[in-house]
């Protein structure tokens, strides 16, 4: 890899849509950057903001949450709740100068393998441009 900055990315993907899309992308042999470390969760609505803080504080350069499209949540409304939480997270980051651009929320359904691969590419490039995150460097957290 040399001196090139390789972003460390954490993805929280819902079991029913975005994780299935990741599988589809894989079985369809679509290529996407290996920077993303996917974590399968049952619902985007089950991602407590504490997990996202943990990821950033332990050195993630970017975090992406993937859920079902609005109206398609397996648990009816989990993704709407996730969206509200992400809004809170983003607001806190903004207020405290923590670079809120490092957090993405995307809706990717089980059939959108291509969209998954493309989104991961986009996100990796986006974070690559932003450079390494400062948040995870401090050991006094």
């Amino acid at each position, binding site marked *: 890899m040399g001196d090139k900055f390789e972003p460390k990315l954490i993805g929280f993907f819902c079991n029913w849509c975005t994780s299935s899309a990741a599988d589809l992308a894989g079985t369809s042999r679509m290529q996407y950057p290996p920077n993303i470390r996917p974590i399968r969760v049952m619902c985007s609505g089950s991602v407590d903001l504490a997990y996202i*803080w943990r990821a950033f504080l332990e050195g993630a350069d970017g975090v992406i949450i993937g859920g079902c499209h609005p109206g398609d949540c397996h648990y009816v*409304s989990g993704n709407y*709740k996730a*969206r509200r*939480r992400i809004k809170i997270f983003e*607001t*806190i980051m903004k*207020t405290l*100068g923590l670079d809120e651009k490092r957090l993405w929320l995307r809706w990717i359904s089980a059939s959108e393998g291509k969209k998954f691969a493309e989104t991961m590419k986009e996100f990796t490039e986006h974070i690559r441009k932003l450079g390494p995150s400062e948040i995870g460097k401090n050991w*006094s957290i």
Partner: protein
Amino acid sequence: MGEKFQLKIKDEDLNKGLKDFLLQIMEKNEISNLIVPLLIPSKNNVFPTFVKNRELLEDAKPIAPVLPVSTATMISKITRLSPSPEKILVFLKPCELRGILELTKFKQITLDNLIFVSYDCMGAYKTDFYEEALSGGKDIDSEYVSKNLMKGEQDDNIRDACKLCENFFSTAFADIGIGFIGADGGILIEAHTEKGKEVLSKLSLEKTEAKERDERLEKISKNRKEKWEKEKKEIKKEATGIDGLVRYFSKCIDCHNCMGQCPICFCKECFWESPTFEFTPLNFLGWAEKKGAVKLPTDTIFFHLGRLSHMSTSCIACGLCSDACPMDIKVYELFHLVADDTQAAFDYKPGRDLEEEAPLVTFKEDELKELG
């Protein structure tokens, strides 16, 4: 708003006058329970107290300028499991009432049979300052009444959070509000709810106008808002970025006292007190390896960021977090700063309206499209 009445107090002592007023309410409305700030037997502090024996009310200090705990938390302890079978009259500060509203939304308080009386609060002193004054035999309450309460002013020793409080007057949620500001030199009594109207209808009170009241309240609120906006800029300068946050919380010893006193942090099983934070040596080896070092205790910034994520949308800016901090960190200022923004994101004001749902327990399908 309901009709406004004038309360005549014969004695100069406001605490005694208000106590007599509360007793009058109780007598005429057949209420036998009262929660009111009361001088504890050692005579050196005042706590919200559940009083049954009326003789003990000789030591009632309704407007005592001290906030050792939030009455909201105390009411939750009483009515969380079931509603009170008997009527309870509760005298409390506006910030405590806002806490009650939020806790009711989170089903931590059952409102049945509770009747609230609140007042124009000009702020409280830090508990140790107040305790010291009482220990020294000082009549600090009377001083506070003449120097602060009746003039609508605040002396230097008032708590920082109180100095910035924009919602210091009895809110619309109080069944009965007691006003000192713009009360034409007297004491104003106002029923804000149907319950309050019914309670007051049994008393014989003289009507009054208090025309200048709203204007004067607004002026004080505006002044404090301006002051806060200025202060906000200072805090933002100080606590920006991860390094700024580490500096801001550099004295944090991970005691979680701020959380313990926060009226909004009601969770019985707090994430930060859970086994998630029981680690093995491997965790520490990993952290130290990755970053070169790990400060002990770790996860202090994580704790504050997490608490902001969980409760800031309902933060009522009471300042008890700062009071509870043994290291004198300005917890309240930072939380208030963030809360202002997270609340604005949902056009939400905690303690404004019981019908207004807390941002984290509801959603709209058609919102926040910019996020996805």
